[in-house]
């Protein structure tokens, strides 16, 4: 049960600016609603990344305003009304750009930090 969002020792809070690219990445697999996106990020990161559900919505709103995603009301698998977000062409391009940026950053960080020191 990973419902309690109190950070477990093995969980990381999201870095500034990472949420947007995670949302875009999640939407590559098709339309999804807010709760689904939150769950998907947590699941695909194998519960390492902690998504504050509340913080998700301003991010979605921002992406929608930038026309990177678009939204439409629809019905969820368990028959609830939900607002589904879809990636736009601009969003797809943005994702490609952002993910390569993050990969380069992660690789560079890894090189600088060097091999993981041996734990006791």
């Amino acid at each position, binding site marked *: 049960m990973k419902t*309690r969002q109190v950070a477990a020792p093995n969980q990381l809070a999201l870095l500034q600016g990472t949420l947007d690219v995670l949302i875009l990445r999640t939407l590559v697999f098709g339309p999804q609603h*807010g*709760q689904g996106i939150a769950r998907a990020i947590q699941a695909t990161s194998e519960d390492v990344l902690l998504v504050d*559900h*509340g913080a998700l*919505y*301003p991010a979605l*709103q921002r992406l929608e305003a930038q026309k990177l995603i678009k939204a439409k009301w629809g019905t969820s698998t368990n028959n*609830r009304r939900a*607002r589904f977000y879809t990636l736009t062409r601009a969003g797809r391009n943005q994702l490609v750009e952002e993910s390569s940026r993050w990969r380069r950053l992660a690789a560079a960080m890894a090189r600088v930090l060097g091999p993981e020191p041996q734990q006791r």
Partner: protein
Amino acid sequence: MNILPPRRTHDDFANEVQSHLDLETDRLVSEGMSPDAARTAAHRAFGNVAGVKERFYEASRFIWLDQFLQDLRYAWRGLRRSPGFVATTVLTLAVGLGLLTVAFTIVNAYVLRPFAIRDPQGLHQIVWRAREGGGPGFRWQDYDELRARTDLFTAVIGEQTRFVASNGRPLMTGLVSSNYFDALGPAIAIGRGLGAADADGAGNPAVLSHQAWIRLFNGDPSALGRDLDLNGRAFTIVGVLAPTFVGLGDMPRDVFVPYTEAWTPRQRRGANGIRETEISVRLQPGIAAGQAAAALTPFLQRVIERQEAVRAEVRPQTSPNPLTPELLAVLAPVFTAFGLVLVTCCANVSSVMLARALARDRELAVRLSMGASRGRVIRQLLTEGLVIALLAGAAGLALAAWGLRAAVFALFSTLPAAVAPLLRIAPLTFDSRVFLFALTVSAVATLTFALFPALQASQTSPIDALRGQGRGGCPGSRLRNLLVAGQVAVALVLVITAATIARNGTAVGAMDLGFDTTGVISVNVRGDQDELARPLADALAADPRVADVAVTSGNPLFNLGLMVAAAPSGAPPVTPTATTFVSPEYFPMLRIPIVEGRAFRADEARGAARVAIVSAATAKAFWPGETAIGQSIRILRSNGGRVDELPEYPEVTVVGVVPAIVGGVMISGRDTGHIYLPMTSADPHATAILVRGRTDRDLTAQTFHEIFRRIVQDPQVFEVLSLAEMRALQIYPLVAASWVGWLLGGVALALSVSGLYGVLVFTLGHRRREIGIRLALGATARAVVQLMLRQSLRLAGFGSLAGLVVAFGVLKILDAAIRLEAITLLDARAFAGGAALVVAATALAAWQPARRATRVDPAQTLRAE
């Protein structure tokens, strides 16, 4: 098309949040949680629902509108509670806005507003330029020739304008080419315009302007088809123009009729024609104005004879006076003066608003401590200012409409009686440009008068204010003092300017012209049919009601003297000298004494003898220390050639000397030099007439009308104006300018006085305690009055000093730019008088608050401690 996507509603967002919570609850329930626990957990995972909703609200782009509407409601409620404050501020601003709007409306009517015709931007006027002279006038035959230039123009319009008598009334008449209405396309109120079918003038059709229709027929639609007498010929009114179009010029036309040859006297037709036809064109697509001018230059060189370096100019004719840098240089100082009054109004309102904002210290402190940001408080105070500015803008427009009507009425009732019936005013109406101007100025005014108080007030420290202390000392006093000193300075600049103009007006009005205008009436020929003066002079001389008649080549005060380069024989040519042909009656009639030598003899006049009478100034300049009598003068053109107009006068002998007189405009003073040559009424140079009746009542307008009718069909060819009226007319602009100056100066002074009064009352309120203690400690009433007066004198002193410096600087610059003999711009008395007036007024403003200060009751103050 909607540019912005439809706004997402708050409810829609709330639904989404709810759906999220439901989905999360569902998932947790499916993982085996109880529904209640699941709901709690979902909420916990979401965090602060209200906070997220708030962030949604703030991110939506219409929040400023919501806040603005809230501010507007708040401002409205607040202002309704203090009607006195609203009335003061709105009225103060309305005066400033109204004055500025009046000035703008006049400029709009004469400069900015395009003619109400089809495509006014495409209309151009053809003008000729030469080394000596130029202008928009052509002969009608030139127009006829230009009409064929379809390679350059899509339309060529010709018009002559002149006053034509209609049952004794002068009507400003446009004699227009038959394509005038088709090419311009002005709106017609009733009936029709003139068309190609009217080219021959058959049936004598006439189109009235709206102004004339109202004036002559009270706007009666049955005027259509009625007869209109023009010059003894009956014309039929076929149409009335809409009020928006009054003709292509400064002077609104009363009536338009087709031009036919009958309008030109036989002897003036063809090549003898006078250049009085103005030509407007519409260019062919792809032809630039410069190209057309280049193509027209050879044509103009052919038709403009006896001029050197003739070239054509095709200039835009969008409005009566399209804006040029020169025109702007004239308008800018006038607008500055009107603008300064508005600035003073703003300063007053600013001062009042500051006092109000400071009085609301506690309220603002509460708002700030409740979490309002400083920006939000400033915005709220600005909104209040905006409401006041909009109210003032509306009131200002109303005031301007009233002011314009009053100004036009004042103009007509103060102009010399002989001139008023000839004056036509362009319609001074408010159009979108005027509204836009008023709105812009109101908005700018808001920023200036509301921003400073708002910034100042928002600096309130909530803790102090809530504790009930307010800031120590006299809050905002620096700013208020600055405003008052600035007002005093502006008022002083305007008062000094007004005093300078007024004193010049008085001085010019009292000027000794060097001749006696009493009873002398000038008759000039309008247009260029100068030869009509000769038979008229004879007819007048033969009339028993006439005592004396003199003919001249240009009457004094009318500035029609011929300028020649004259020099004593044997010396090189000197500066231009005015030269006038006069009949021997001229000097006795104007009571100009012959100071040396003798007057012209009748035989000299008949034979156009080569003799001259010179003014004392010319005599002194040409032969210093010698007598002028018997000396000879060479008369040349400025470039040394012979004067075409004076073929018989290369050299003349001086027989007499007279004192200098004012031949042209009075502000230029007496002529620097003058040469008089003899002639009779038979001479071609006899183009103007001076006449004196046997008694004052002999020569009425009716008499002149009757005598004129013997010479010409149209008596309006002659312009009758007594020399006394001409003198009044010349002073009129100065007098009118000084009225405007006094008005502006008076308003500014009243505002600065009330501003100073406000500051002192405010200070008194804040220093009541201090004064009470001083009185209790034994200060005399005198000391307290001094205390109060010292503050006001310091403000008035600083303001006056600044005003004096600015006024001196401005007038010094103008003085360097304007070189007029009779005008003194740096007038010590105007400066001293203006400063004394302003200081006295400010002292008066300070007196009442100072007296009130002495009545502070020490006992009461101490008890309150």
